[in-house]
């Protein structure tokens, strides 16, 4: 290549390069300027500029235009919502834009608590879409409007609510007596009414009735004349319970009470207390991206998924054992509000409310620990609201009726406690401290409550006062006592002779009454409380007039049966309902060492004799056969350690 040609070529190239340099430099300048410009001309700045203009017109103080940041108890620990939502950030409100309106009156200062702890969303973001939770990497969108109160429950996770039934009757009473005429329970902050909407959190004097009466007496105001008092003790307790449930979050409270009333914790565990079903302690923290929405009819969010679940659980998972709760749509919303509040996210302890400290640090319960509400919260979902038992269609297991005399007559208190504590294989969870999480005194309360469901026996005085009808008595004796004690009360393999001369019980009326009332500890003799006074009188008469020359009472022992024959008998008569195979769905599957380990021989004997439908002939077995079957069952496993007291 000639030097001159090369020279010209390079000159031309140089010229082009110089042009390129100039153009590209300018372009780079422009491009680089865009970045700080976009940072500067942001959504929040525009919003704050709008505020400044509006404030100027309203002759208010101008504000500094900057990102506004408040601390937050959430792990993300700052909230910048106030950069656009100026009204909520404590800036003087102006009209003209909902962003600048003041925050509705709430007990917590947004400047101290931030916003996301109550509302959800992404506190660190300053663009609307991202802050409201629209980003793919932030799966905590704002709580939708109907479920706003879930945010309250995230911190106030251990608010103690009383017995749902008491609350319901208290609410009815409050309305019926017109208390709402002077008191506001909805948090509307009316100047004319005294606000009770958060009285459950703030606390109230239990002597409020006395104060009312005194105030009514001292005042000349006409309104006191309409005061609904006085209330009886029970009514007072109901209204107290209702007042205690007023914490400023009615949806949340309704949801929590519904869950307690329906007995969801019979299967579901929340905060370590509950059955063996799915743990709900963090259900509010489930991520939508991990859920399967293919069968969900509503919106594809956690709330939508929960709604589908609560409407028809088997739709989401055909193998689910959860029965459909049968709730109205409004009730479903309330339950969803409560469920969304169940989260295990750590919250800075500087922000813990007293109920959370009491619950999480001091170990106090957030549910009532009396027998009836405990039974309702943990047992009623399977065993029925009054222990009537449940055998719903489908795959859900059979849950025996435990609230009736048929069971309670032969189940001692100790047996009840042990069963609750240890559960039954396959179908009933263990409720002791290490599994279901109930304390021993709570289990005692449940057993005591069940005991109250038993029929009340007429008093001995009443019985003694009734007329004696011996023929009737003998008839009852024939039906009731002979299956164990023999045709003439001579004693059998399973029941001692009643007609023995040395039987101390059968000699005296009051002793017989006592035995019928309470049964005999550690034996198959349960109580017999379904009789009315005349029948009892007749029965006692029949027993006392038995022929007393059958073998001595003191020599009698229950005879051990033959397990082989018992097995044969079981196979022929019992397996159709009680077998371990699917037949066991009609009645507890008892041919199982784990079941047998929970039931003493006395309970087994009493159950066989007394708990079946008495009209079915084929189920009535002779005492020897009963002994054989019991022996067979016992052969499957050892007896429980203590037989328990009555």
């Amino acid at each position, binding site marked *: 290549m000639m030097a001159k040609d090369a020279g010209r070529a390079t000159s031309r190239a140089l010229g082009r390069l110089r042009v390129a340099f100039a153009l590209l430099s300018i372009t780079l300048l422009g491009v680089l300027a865009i970045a700080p410009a976009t940072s500067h001309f942001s959504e929040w700045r525009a919003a704050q500029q709008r505020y400044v203009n509006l404030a100027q017109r309203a002759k208010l103080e101008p504000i500094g235009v900057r990102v506004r940041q408040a601390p937050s108890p959430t792990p993300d620990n700052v909230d910048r919502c106030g950069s656009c939502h100026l009204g909520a950030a404590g800036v003087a409100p102006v009209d003209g834009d909902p962003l600048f309106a003041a925050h509705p009156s709430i007990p917590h200062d947004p400047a101290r608590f931030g916003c996301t702890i109550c509302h959800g969303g992404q506190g660190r973001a300053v663009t609307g879409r991202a802050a409201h939770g629209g980003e793919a990497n932030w799966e905590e969108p704002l709580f939708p409007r109907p479920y706003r109160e879930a945010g309250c429950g995230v911190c106030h996770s251990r608010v103690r609510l009383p017995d749902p039934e008491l609350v319901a009757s208290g609410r009815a009473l409050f309305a019926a007596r017109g208390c709402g005429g002077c008191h506001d329970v909805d948090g509307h902050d009316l100047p004319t009414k005294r606000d009770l909407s958060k009285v459950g959190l703030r606390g109230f004097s239990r002597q409020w009735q006395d104060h009312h009466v005194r105030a009514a007496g001292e005042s000349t105001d006409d309104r006191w004349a309409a005061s609904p008092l006085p209330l009886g003790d029970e009514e007072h307790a109901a209204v107290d319970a209702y007042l205690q449930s007023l914490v400023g979050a009615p949806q949340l409270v309704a949801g929590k009470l519904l869950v307690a009333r329906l007995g969801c914790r019979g299967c579901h565990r929340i905060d370590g207390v509950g059955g063996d079903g799915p743990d709900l302690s963090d259900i509010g923290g489930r991520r939508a991206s991990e859920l399967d929405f293919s069968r969900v009819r509503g919106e594809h969010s956690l709330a939508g998924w929960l709604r589908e679940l609560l409407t028809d659980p088997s739709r989401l998972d055909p193998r689910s054992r959860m029965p459909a709760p049968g709730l109205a749509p409004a009730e479903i919303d309330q339950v969803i509000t409560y469920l969304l509040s169940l989260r295990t996210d750590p919250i800075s302890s500087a922000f813990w409310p007293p109920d959370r400290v009491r619950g999480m640090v001091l170990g106090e319960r957030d549910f009532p620990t009396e027998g009836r509400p405990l039974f309702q919260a943990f047992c009623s979902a399977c065993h029925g609201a009054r222990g009537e038992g449940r055998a719903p269609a489908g795959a859900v297991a059979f849950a025996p009726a435990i609230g009736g005399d048929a069971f309670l007559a032969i189940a001692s208190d100790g047996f009840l406690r042990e069963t609750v504590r240890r*559960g039954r*294989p396959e179908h009933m969870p*263990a409720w*002791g401290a290490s*599994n279901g999480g109930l304390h021993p005194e709570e289990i005692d309360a449940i057993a005591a409550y069940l005991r109250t469901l038993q029929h009340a026996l007429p008093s001995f005085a009443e019985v003694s006062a009734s007329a004696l009808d011996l023929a009737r008595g003998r008839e009852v004796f024939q039906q009731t006592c002979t299956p164990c004690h023999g045709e003439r009360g001579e004693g059998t393999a399973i029941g001692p002779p009643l007609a023995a001369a040395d039987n101390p019980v059968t000699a005296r009326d009051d002793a017989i009454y006592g035995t019928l009332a309470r049964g005999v500890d550690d034996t198959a003799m349960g109580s017999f409380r379904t009789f009315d006074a005349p029948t009892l009188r007749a029965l006692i008469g029949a027993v006392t007039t038995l022929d007393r020359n059958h073998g001595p009472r003191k020599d009698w022992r229950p005879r051990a049966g033959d397990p082989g024959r018992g097995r044969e008998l079981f196979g022929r008569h019992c397996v159709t309902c009680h077998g371990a195979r699917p037949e066991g769905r009609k009645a507890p599957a008892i041919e199982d060492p784990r079941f047998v380990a929970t039931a003493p021989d006395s309970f087994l004997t009493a159950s066989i004799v007394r708990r079946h439908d008495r009209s079915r002939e084929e189920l009535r077995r002779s005492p020897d056969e009963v002994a054989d079957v019991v022996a067979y069952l016992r052969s499957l496993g050892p007896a429980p350690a203590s037989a328990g007291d009555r």
Partner: protein
Amino acid sequence: MPLVDDLRMPSDEADVERRRFLALLGSSALGLAGLGTVIAGIRYLEPDVLYEEDTRFEVGRPETISLGTVLVSRARKVYVVHGERGFYALSAVCTHLGCVTRHEPGTDRIVCPCHGSTFDLGGRVTSGPARTRLRRLELELRRGVLVVDAGRLVDDDARPLEV
């Protein structure tokens, strides 16, 4: 510019020997120092204290865990299985490259989301790129409660805990 130093080797053999010896001594010492620095440096980088959680945790009472149950602790990355022969604890960490596996409920399969390794409930590989079984972890019964130590490994063939 005149050179004022004299860098010629000395004529005297002893001097040469001396120089060589000093040079060797110096370089060896430096070499050792260098080597020592490397070793001390590596020792420096080895952590002397670990800011990590205690690896032991309680599982529950064995009588409350029925046969066939697979308990999953996601936070600890442990499966506790009540098998035919008793209780045992498996690490949920895939042996391929350390991702956290998932147990498919209602089945006997444990699946790893990273490369699709699948294991059975005994921890054995059924498919996928993993080559070794899920590690067995120490499981003990202490005062009636099952306790797992996720930091201690146990033989793959160790007997399950019979209760």
